[in-house]
């Protein structure tokens, strides 16, 4: 396939997925009591566009299934069939199936058997309902001008048709089907008699016939679909376009036309073929695990290939183009100024141009970073459906309120936030929310509310998941933490610290592990992902009032607000997000416990002191002055005071990877380049704490 075609196909998949998302959103927001006609039109249009485009790009399975959905919608749109909650559920399942169709079509694999079955069941149900109100043929549609393109036929079709068992009883005129097909073009038919049972078991009124048909025609697939309209049920009809003119036909196709081999025989021959992996395992060349691993790898590669595109709003690109235009002008100004740099005027021009260049580079940097920013809606959009499903499953009335969907986040963040937010929302509905009876008993409205909010606050993005449920049971968390040895007996952690314990691995206070949550796995993922993004988690909870979980994330991964410090002769950068305060103390304020562990008492709290010179093995390791400069840092609820030699300032630094050419260094999260061209290392606060703990353990 040519590159251009592949590109169009990608565009098709993206568009079709968006359309499916749109259908889902419309279905969910629909008020079933008084259905807006415009909503139905929207649904119909979306289905129709998916169908048309799928046919154009050669995905007949997608097209024919979407056609079924579309036909179901038609009487609803005409007002002859009501939109019932049941029908909505069926349609939602249909949307899911379209998605999995697209997913598999993109990988060029057939729909898995499980989904095939689902599809059959769904189509049967849709038609079952439809028999009550007879189904008119799909109306010619004027809304999509793309139709003429979309419906343009190829070289023809290869059709497999299994007559419904009750064809005779229903009085279907099977001959007419073939007569109609013959009108479309040249027809080759191979009857398949293999489905006929043994004579004793045969009911003469059942029809067991099947045909493989090769139809050469310029007509579009929809015409063929129309012929089979009343006999197609589930998967008894499979229509595949013949490979287009100009491409090399498959061996099977040639054998069909030239040697008259029946498609059934070819299928049988093909089914005896094994997959490469199986063959290799049989030959004893590789272990099955190796094949599985390779398959996993392949899958990962595919996923990566899919995830590597960003959709950028045109106005963002326009602004970039303008900016680059301005840069070119500035460059010309500079060139001119440099030629006459010895004159007064030239010098003036030069400094003006440099000023301009400065502004433009800064803006360019911001804008280029902006390309990576996508609205948080990309993650949020999946939740209305999820909450709807969860509520139904758990028998709870839940309303989802979303705010700030337009808040922009780095693309990487969006991808890494999907899992954590899914877990948080699921937990909120499953555990946070009481059931209806209990809510009424405690004087709350029966309808629970989950709020998802995103906002940008001073260099950070806040994402909040809030429920109005029963709140965290801190007594139980305390007990559980004691049992698991997460806290020492007799210690008195603050409410905040207790709240954060729910993010510890394997921590779940729910006795009953439900189907959805309560295994204590999900919350651990939340912590990991948020930490990987350089963010932190805050939890607020009031018994009986609800819980608020806030993810505080940096704006982007590439730039960090840092506090630069000097340790011996080296410069290091603390991420400002983990710095609480810095202060100077007398040497005597630092007390020693257990021989060499140093602590400092700060407002009644004992905080371990970490000598960075010693930990990072820089400088002489001997503190000369009796005054110590301490930077109080916090990570995962633990605090430490890091002793440094000088505070240099606060600045934004661009994060560079150490791993590209070097390797990961414990305690160091990356590097940056300072104004004077030197490299400064960025400290990884949790890593440093682990290092220190390790050093203490060895020392003890």
């Amino acid at each position: 396939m040519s590159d251009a075609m592949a590109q169009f196909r990608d565009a098709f998949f993206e568009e079709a997925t968006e359309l499916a998302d749109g259908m889902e959103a419309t279905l969910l927001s629909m008020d079933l009591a008084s259905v807006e006609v415009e909503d139905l039109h929207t649904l119909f249009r979306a289905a129709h566009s998916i169908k048309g485009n799928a046919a154009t790009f050669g995905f007949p399975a997608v097209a024919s299934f979407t056609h079924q959905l579309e036909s179901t919608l038609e009487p609803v749109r005409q007002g002859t069939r009501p939109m019932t909650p049941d029908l909505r559920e069926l349609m939602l399942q249909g949307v899911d199936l379209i998605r999995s169709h697209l997913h598999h079509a993109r990988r060029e694999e057939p729909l898995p058997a499980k989904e095939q079955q689902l599809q059959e069941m769904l189509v049967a149900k849709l038609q079952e309902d439809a028999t009550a109100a007879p189904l008119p043929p799909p109306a010619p549609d004027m809304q999509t001008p793309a139709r003429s393109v979309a419906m343009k036929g190829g070289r023809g079709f290869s059709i497999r048709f299994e007559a419904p068992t009750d064809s005779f009883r229903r009085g279907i005129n099977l001959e007419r089907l073939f007569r109609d097909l013959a009108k479309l073009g040249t027809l080759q038919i191979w009857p398949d008699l293999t489905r006929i049972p043994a004579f004793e078991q045969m009911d003469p009124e059942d029809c067991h016939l099947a045909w493989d048909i090769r139809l050469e025609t310029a007509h579009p697939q929809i015409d063929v679909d129309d012929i089979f309209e009343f006999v197609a049920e589930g998967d008894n009809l499979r229509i595949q376009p013949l490979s287009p003119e100009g491409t090399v036909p498959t061996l099977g196709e040639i054998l069909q036309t030239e040697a008259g081999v029946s498609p059934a025989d070819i299928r049988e021959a093909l089914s005896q073929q094994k997959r490469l992996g199986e063959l290799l395992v049989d030959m004893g060349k590789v272990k099955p695990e190796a094949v599985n691993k390779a398959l996993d790898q392949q899958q990962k590669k595919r996923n990566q290939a899919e995830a590597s595109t960003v959709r950028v709003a045109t106005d963002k690109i326009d602004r970039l183009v303008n900016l680059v235009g301005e840069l070119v002008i500035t460059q010309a100004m500079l060139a001119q100024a440099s030629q006459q740099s010895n004159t007064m005027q030239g010098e003036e021009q030069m400094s003006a141009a440099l000023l301009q260049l400065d502004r433009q580079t800064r803006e360019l940097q911001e804008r280029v970073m902006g390309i990576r920013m996508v609205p948080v809606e990309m993650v949020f959009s999946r939740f209305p459906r999820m909450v709807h499903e969860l509520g139904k499953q758990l028998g709870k009335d839940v309303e989802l309120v979303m705010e700030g969907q337009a808040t922009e986040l780095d693309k990487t963040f969006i991808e890494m936030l999907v899992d954590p937010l899914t877990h948080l929302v699921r937990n909120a509905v499953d555990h946070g929310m009481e059931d209806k009876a209990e809510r009424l008993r405690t004087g709350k409205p029966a309808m629970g509310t989950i709020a998802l909010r995103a906002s940008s606050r001073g260099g950070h993005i806040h994402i909040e998941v809030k429920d109005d449920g029963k709140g965290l049971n801190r007594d139980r968390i305390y007990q559980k933490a004691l049992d698991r040895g997460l806290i020492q007996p007799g210690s008195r952690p603050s409410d905040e610290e207790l709240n954060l314990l729910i993010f510890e691995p394997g921590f779940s206070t729910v006795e009953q592990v439900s189907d959805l949550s309560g295994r204590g796995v999900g919350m651990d993922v939340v912590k990991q992902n948020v930490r990987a993004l350089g963010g932190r988690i805050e939890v607020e909870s009031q018994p009986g009032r609800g819980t608020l979980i806030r993810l505080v994330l940096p704006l982007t991964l590439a730039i960090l607000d840092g506090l630069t410090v000097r340790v011996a002769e080296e410069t290091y950068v603390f991420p400002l997000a983990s710095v609480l305060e810095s202060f100077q103390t007398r040497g005597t304020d630092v007390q020693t416990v257990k021989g060499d562990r140093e602590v400092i008492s700060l407002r009644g709290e004992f905080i371990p002191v970490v000598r960075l010179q010693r930990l990072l093995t820089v400088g002489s390791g001997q503190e000369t002055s009796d005054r110590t400069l301490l930077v109080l840092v916090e990570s995962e609820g633990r605090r430490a005071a890091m002793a440094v030699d000088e505070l240099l300032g606060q600045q934004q630094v661009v994060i560079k990877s150490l791993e590209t050419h070097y390797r990961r260094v414990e305690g160091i999260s990356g590097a940056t380049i300072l104004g004077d061209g030197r490299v400064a290392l960025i400290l990884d606060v949790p890593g440093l704490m682990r290092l220190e703990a390790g050093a203490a353990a060895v020392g003890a």
Partner: protein
Amino acid sequence: MASTEASSQSLQQVLCFALAGEAYALPILKVREIQAQATITRIPKAPPYMPGVINLRGAIVPILELRHRFSLGDAPEDTRPVIVIVEVQGRTLGIRVDSVSDVLDLDPSAIRPAPELGTQSALGREFIAGLASLPGATGAESMLILLDLDRLLSDGELMALESATV
């Protein structure tokens, strides 16, 4: 210049540099550029022969201290080390040497395998791709040690680089 009459394809171009008074050479195709001394930022707990990183036009590049690698002791005060930037196995790396002298065309046939060296030599035989003798200006021959960069690094620190994901 050695054997200019030989066909240019068969000649191997090497970059010569000095280290503690001896002449070494690297295949020129591995060399990306030569940098004057840059400030090295020390990496905590790094081995002495790989003390830190430098800023190479925005990329963070580790430095290999060849004197330490070969246990040749510290450079005398008056040397002004240069950094040879090389690319090995997809990574960029700076090698700190005393000075860079020349680019030579070597006839591969003039390269002899290294003899077995005694255990007292820190520069194990495995790092040496071969020895070449160069006719000196006065007629006396001098010796050039050809380094095998891949082995030098795979043997030592690069292995650590690959596996270090602790």
